[in-house]
């Protein structure tokens, strides 16, 4: 096992320090702004609070390729984890975007970000098996575990994913990891968005080794991953023009370095039922996730964008830009909001963790 642990990062167990820092703050009822390397400062609502630096809690605690499980401290750089996995022919199948070279695992999980493979392999939350956290009483608690199947107790480790640090300080996170595909090719089809959405969903209904899709500038990109012969057969089946240097394309897309994202105005992330036809909204749109994810550069009113998203069974997030003091995430129904408030209180009774980063009042 030891040879798998050379992650390159320094190892430092800061759990006790972090718990002590939380306990002190609870007593003083001071809000905390939890950060890793703060590469996702752009995301969520503006938070006032004393910074709690979680990036000092680093190191891969356990990694066993044949168990398909990796446990790492939340401050471990995502890059280090990805390198370690790659050295063993494995990967994080949800292909998390890092949005910065120094991104930590904890920040990635707290934001719940997933990349191009998400509709075909699962989201960040699907791969979280367990977590150790500090709750709002300064207690260090473990939920879930390091095994694939575990239904003992409520699933509080998955609840942490995407909670933006509002329910606890992530200490250690256990993830299911998967083998890296042996072979990967990308093909391109000139298609309108309308046609592309129909095509992606038609293919998703067939057992094809599709692992990513993107439609921009009237071109549909489809990545195929799997065994050599499996991918080759699918290439013959689908046709299209083979794209060279495709891994760079998917990387820039994932990291929002693709030219589409070079834009100063508000960027909306609209998540809808996958087969939803192009949304009748003003602005430029890039489509991912088999149609399920629509990136929208638009100055349209939030209410208009949200109404369109809701009508398509989904929700809209003001991902970058715009007013970070306003409603960034899709408003919840009153009953659902009440549950959020109660849950926040259950884990963070004094409301000290990232207050208001998700919604005003939680």
């Amino acid at each position, binding site marked *: 096992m030891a040879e798998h642990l050379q992650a390159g990062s320094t190892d430092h167990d800061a759990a006790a320090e972090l718990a002590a820092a939380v306990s002190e703050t609870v007593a003083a009822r001071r809000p905390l702004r939890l950060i890793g390397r703060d590469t996702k400062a752009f995301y969520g609502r503006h938070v006032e609070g004393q910074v709690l630096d979680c990036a000092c809690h680093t190191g891969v605690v356990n990694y066993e390729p*044949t168990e398909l499980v990796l446990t790492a401290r939340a401050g471990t750089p995502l890059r280090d984890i990805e390198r370690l996995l790659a050295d063993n022919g494995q990967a994080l199948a949800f292909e998390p975007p890092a949005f910065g070279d120094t991104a930590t695992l904890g920040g990635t999980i707290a934001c719940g970000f997933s990349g191009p493979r998400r509709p075909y392999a699962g989201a960040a939350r699907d791969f979280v098996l367990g977590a150790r956290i500090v709750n709002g009483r300064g207690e260090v608690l473990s939920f879930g575990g390091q095994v694939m199947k575990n239904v003992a107790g409520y699933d509080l480790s998955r609840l942490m994913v995407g909670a933006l640090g509002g329910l606890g300080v992530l200490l250690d996170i256990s993830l299911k990891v998967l083998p890296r595909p042996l072979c990967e090719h990308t093909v391109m089809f000139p298609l309108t968005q309308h046609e592309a959405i129909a095509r992606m969903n038609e293919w998703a209904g067939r057992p094809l080794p599709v692992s990513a899709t993107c439609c921009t500038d009237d071109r549909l990109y489809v990545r195929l991953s799997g065994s050599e012969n499996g991918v080759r057969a699918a290439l013959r089946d689908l046709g299209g023009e083979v794209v060279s240097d495709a891994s760079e394309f998917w990387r820039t897309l994932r990291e929002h370095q693709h030219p589409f994202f070079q834009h100063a105005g508000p960027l909306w992330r609209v998540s809808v039922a996958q087969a939803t036809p192009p949304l009748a909204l003003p602005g430029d749109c890039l489509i991912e996730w088999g149609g399920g994810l629509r990136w929208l550069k638009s100055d349209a009113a939030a209410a208009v964008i949200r109404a369109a998203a809701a009508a398509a069974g989904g929700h809209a997030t003001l991902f970058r830009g715009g007013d970070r003091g306003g409603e960034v995430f899709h408003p919840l129904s009153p009953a659902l909001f009440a549950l959020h408030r109660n*849950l926040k209180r259950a884990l963070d009774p004094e409301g000290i963790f990232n207050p208001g980063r998700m919604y005003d009042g939680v």
Partner: protein
Amino acid sequence: MATPADDLSTPAPSRDMVAVALRRILPDESVLADDESVRPYECDGLSAYRRLPLIVALPNTVEQVCEIARCCRDLKVPLVARGAGTGLSGGALPLENGVLLSLTKFTRILDIDPANRTARLQPGVRNLAISEAVSHLDLYYAPDPSSQIACTIGGNVAENSGGLHCLKYGLTVHNILELKVVTIDGELVTIGGQALDAAGYDLLALMTGSEGLLGIIVEVTVKLLPKPECAKVIMASFDDVEKAADAVGNIIARGIIPGGLEMMDNKAIRAAEDYVHAGYDTEAAAIVLCELDGTPEEVDDDIRRVEEVLQRGGCTDLQLARDEAQRMAFWSGRKAAFPAVGRISPDYYCMDGTIPRKRLGTVLNRIDALSEESGLRIANVFHAGDGNLHPLILYDGNKPGELELAEEVGGKILELCVEVGGTITGEHGVGIEKINQMCVQFNAQELTQFHAVKEAFDPGRLLNPDKAVPTLHRCAEFGAMHVHKGNSKFPNIERF
């Protein structure tokens, strides 16, 4: 058998009083209020625990469920939801002062959306009925518990059920998009959505596996997957269980995630072979069943690689199912393993621990020792790919003390799973059965956190109370009887 004391101290409303209140909401025949009619609901799949409910309510509209919840809240009467009652941990065990809410009338498939590959279902729809209803579209619903003919989608969500294919295709939590849930206040809340994610906290994950303690699930939207074009299964025999376990690890190390990866030990092999004549090697110490699915090209690639790994791992025999009939035969033995074991023993008790796979050898040896010590035979079936172990403890309930002995051995097996870094339940839930072992897996602060989460949904503790999460009082009592590794996990709690 003694069931845990219900520590609800308010004087319970009488059966008549509750019946009158419920008959204002439901037609008379949908409220069962005499011992004779409620008896069929006295237990779930864990039949060693039985208790008559005060009342059984059989609503058939969501509005009725909302009104029943409000009624129970106002009367402070506990409410236990029940799907098909196939649960193996006593989750749907009724309370004698409570209403058992049966969801069996909710059997409608509300909508099938072929373009988005989803189905919207009432909670009482049977698991297998989903795949049957979408088969003509070449789609299916992936999680396939062995009880799939009977169990309901509502029960599957409440237990986060798995199946033979969850290593590759995930558990219930990975295959649902949206829930409609009735809270104890009678409010209908939509959790998740028709998109791949939803705003706010991941309540979809929190509800999944919450065993009816947080809300009543009245609608479920599931994802549907395209049927694999091709599936092939390999069966390998081993003369040593550890060699078999290593081979399983090596398949995964080669970068292959099989559609199914199962293992059975000799006792389970013999029982299954006697029962369904699957063509199993009854001399083998263990067999491994490995199914590869995908496009024909992918499957051929993978079959070759898996065969190589198994051969290198020292298997004594290797068979590739020659056709669909033989593939089904190979699986039939595994799928019928529980009833097969039921034939060789008057009773059996099914355990459900998960362990890191590399500890399998240790765990099986310790289980052998427990078997020898107790004199009870134990057969093992194993979702090997994901480390989920189902030891079946054979006993005779008519022999005084044997059930208690079986339970004691079972408890020790679960604690062993925790000791090697695993968990007391992979897919069957805690219910009432493993409530004591929760005190071994979680400390007092963690359990207190669970109670606080329940409080966020159900402050009056009326939804399936006293299941799934033990009170600290209970753990203190359990700890006093059963000191774990020489030191109690609850040193600071007063003993009563």
